[in-house]
């Protein structure tokens, strides 16, 4: 190989490595459900700490970063729905705390667009929606949202009570 050709090949190789690093193929941890859950725990904790010290924008940024992956790293769809609805709820409550009622109701709607499985995250989103709509003076819609939250709540309580109020066992995740 001529020296000039070798030089070109070396430059091409460097470009390839640089593009791989730039794309995150070499630098990032491997994607997948386990990696997503680890990130969920770490970033979620960071958001909670930021919220506790009153740094709401930092908490919001952390939660928004977690919502960036619509596939949750490959979790089963129903599990991903639970996680994302919970994140939409957390983020929405933060927005509402900052007075951003419209953003909060939009986040509630985005979360509920994933489905209403009648579980805790769904109830939280209806509650959030109710409060956000109430803050916008849309009382009728707010009342309907509260009503749906109460329906879910009543059903979950009913499921809990036959066991004598004991908090044990595992419920299916619809």
């Amino acid at each position, binding site marked *: 190989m001529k020296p000039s050709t070798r030089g070109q090949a070396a430059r091409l190789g460097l470009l390839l490595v640089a593009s791989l690093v730039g794309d995150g193929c070499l630098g990032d941890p*491997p994607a997948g459900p*386990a990696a997503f*859950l680890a990130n969920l725990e770490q970033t979620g904790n960071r958001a909670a700490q930021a919220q506790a010290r009153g740094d709401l924008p930092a908490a919001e940024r952390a939660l928004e970063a977690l919502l960036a992956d619509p596939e949750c790293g490959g979790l*089963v769809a129903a599990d991903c729905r639970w996680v994302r609805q919970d994140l939409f709820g957390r983020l929405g409550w933060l927005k509402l705390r900052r007075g951003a009622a419209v953003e909060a109701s939009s986040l509630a709607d985005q979360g509920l667009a994933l489905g209403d499985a009648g*579980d805790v995250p769904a109830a939280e989103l209806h509650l959030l929606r*109710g409060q956000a709509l109430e803050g916008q003076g849309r009382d009728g819609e707010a009342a309907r949202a509260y009503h749906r939250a*109460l329906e879910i709540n*009543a059903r979950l309580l009913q499921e809990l009570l036959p066991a004598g109020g004991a908090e044990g066992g*595992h419920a*299916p995740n619809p």
Partner: protein
Amino acid sequence: MRPDQEPTPAEQRDAVRLSRLLEGEELAPGPVAEELAAARLLLHPVRGELTPERATAVWQRIAAVTPDGRPAPADRARPGRWLALGAATLAAGATAAVLLTFSGPPAATPLPPPGLALLTAQAKLAQGEPAPPELEHLRQAYRAEVHAALAARYGRDR
């Protein structure tokens, strides 16, 4: 066969059959008889029941038969190959049908039920009461339980 070689037993048998046929004797059904019949058809296509094209097709079919009457190797392999291919296709189709019928989407992870305290606090909020101070802590505790259940299923990278 080279002229200086002795005829093989099969060649001798064929020669005997041929001489009998030429003498007007009917041959027992076999490859020689079939080949001669086809040759007759080819030589006398007008007199015969077959058109020249049909006679050629018959000859080609007979030519694909070995002297002992078995199909030529290429043809002998074909039915088995087609059978195997058919069986494989059927098996693949049946497997796909069974998988489609019984698999469905992957099952969700069984999650722990929410605690009574969390549900009660949520209900108070939904009924217009102010958010109980412990609500955020209860949410975090339940969230941690759910995340632990998910990690038990999927693992958690450290």
